[in-house]
């Protein structure tokens, strides 16, 4: 999928989001929708212009930078030039534009989903131990025994910090009732 198509898919999803949001505001009272309606309309408007912009034949985006304006363009030219201008921070290289990167994106999302799943099933502390040790083993960063040891120490540190130090009432997961005695 080309970059432009990806951008259009994202913009399309956002248009749908803004439209649904706008429809939902119609059910609200006049006070409750006083600000959300104009914001949704503005967002929709900006997005439509952005879609037109990004599909123009020259592919040039409408760029404006307060810094550039204040410095008569010096900043803009420089900031556009290199990818590391993390003004927000969005300027990093664009990961995920190659098939290999897309595969890694899916893996990253998979890791995250697995971690969340473990937390929901077993609670944060057990999940941290299983996830970290599993991650160390899967990536072969540590030998299995060392991976389990390092993960155990990290989990212990986090347990002491959050559960003991901060006296956080831990969640034990949806599987907790199955492990309770009696």
């Amino acid at each position, binding site marked *: 999928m080309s970059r432009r198509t990806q951008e259009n898919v994202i913009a399309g999803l956002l248009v749908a989001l803004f439209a649904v949001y706008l429809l939902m505001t119609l059910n609200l009272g006049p006070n409750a929708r006083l600000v959300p309606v104009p914001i949704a309309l503005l967002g929709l408007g*900006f997005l439509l212009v952005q879609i037109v912009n990004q599909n123009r034949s020259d592919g040039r985006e*409408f760029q404006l*930078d307060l810094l550039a304006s204040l410095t008569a363009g010096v900043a803009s030219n420089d900031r556009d030039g290199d990818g590391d201008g993390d003004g927000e921070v969005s300027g990093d290289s664009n990961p995920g534009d190659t098939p290999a990167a897309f595969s890694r994106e899916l893996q990253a999302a998979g890791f*995250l989903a697995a971690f969340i799943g473990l937390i929901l099933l077993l609670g944060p502390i057990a999940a941290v131990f299983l996830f970290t040790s599993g991650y160390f083993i899967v990536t072969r960063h540590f030998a299995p025994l060392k991976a389990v040891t390092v993960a155990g120490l990290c989990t212990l540190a986090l347990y002491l*910090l959050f559960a003991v130090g901060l006296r956080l009432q831990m969640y034990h997961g949806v599987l907790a009732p199955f492990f309770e005695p009696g």
Partner: protein
Amino acid sequence: MFEAIVAGLAALATPQAVLFMLIGVSYGLVIGILPGLGGIVALALLLPFTYGHELAATLALLLGAHIATIWGGSVTSILFKVPGAAKSLALVFDGHPMTRQGHAARALGASAMAALLGGLMGAVFLAFTIPIVRPVMLALGPSEYLMMALWGLTIIATFSEGSLLKGLVATCLGIMVAFVGMDPVSGTPRFWFGNVYLLDGISFPVAMIGLFAVAEMMTLYVKGGAMVDRVSGEQRSTVLDGVKDTFRHWGLVLRSSLLGLWVGVLPGVGASVGGIAAYAQAAQTSRTPERFGKGAVEGVIAPDATLGANEGGGLMPTLAFGIPGGESMAILLVAFLAMGIVPGPRMLTSELDLVFSMVWIVVIANLLTALIGLAISSRLARLPALNPNVMIPLVLSVCLLGAFATRGLIEDVVVAAAFGVIGYLMNKYRYSRANFVIGMVLAEMIERNLHISLGLYGEFFLFTRPITAAMLAFIVVTTVLPFVRRYRRSRAAAAGDGT
């Protein structure tokens, strides 16, 4: 007054006060460094420990912890692009690029020193300006606060790297997310899909953990390699360089501190706005603004000086009028009341020694934080060079536990992960995450003050409130100016091509 200054210091010279101060600062640094757990959480967790101790010692514990969390939050912004709290967001813009270039120690040194100088100015301000600022404070109403929030939105152009339109879309998205939950004015549930969890709204720290920390770990995994592309531990500058930078830019420190004081004094504006505004003014007044966003040390100094000074400014209305300058100050106010300290004019007369105790606490806590910060900066600076296979699971674990810890709700963990994916996509497709956060921060302030202004001053309040009208004119000028200059530049360029 001199007696009060001495008495205020003497009250802190007890073993318990010294111990509590050390505990507070150390605890605050740890909490500040943990993503999502900022000063509010730190103070809330300390509240149960505030009974049965010396008054000055308890204040040292609370204020010491609160002040130390500020620098703690800056550390993660600089090293990992993970703002420890909303107020530390601006540190990401230049702090993290410095880390990537091997100047993490310098950035941390500058950050600690700027926070110290800002904090000292805040303390001095707190001591001497209550009678001066009071009339100014009272002259501003909700319509002026609304204008300030709108001004905050207009400065997002500074952060709209690449497409301004995408930046504006991101801002609208942030505002929309902030509207999930109960409408603060009418109490109407909005966008909650029948889910009780959403009635409380999306937690700000949780969203930030996802948008920045989780997303960053995903990016790190996809990209491969360490967060900092350099040999582990190799630093191109030292902590001392950062300290020198701060003194070299003394004018910037002074301006940023004054801004922080002003933001702190204004109730409800919050340090988040202050940090962003400080960054914007640093960029606008710099002779070399093209370096901003790429690792300019001024981009670190300005927000930290503002955040440091903000505390003194925030304490002033809290003590003098019982009006908290922000969320942390609201918790402090609760603690004050629990300790029998009743804010009001009496604080400036019969309780003046207590006020000066707080001034001294702000001074000492800032000094201690800076000393500890400078001492550990060079070690902290090596962290981003850790192997990603170690970094990713550990940072994810801390972040998701931090998300859970913010409210003790397991749903927050899921929301943090969801925002992680959103943050990753925003980063990939260049929808500014900073704009999203700014929108989220300012949404409630805009809505609340708009409703109050309409209620108090009617539909035409823009024209009946001269200060509001002047502020609106300022906003319009600063918003339109970039467009005009861009137009002129393009015309000049076209004319140049034609000849």
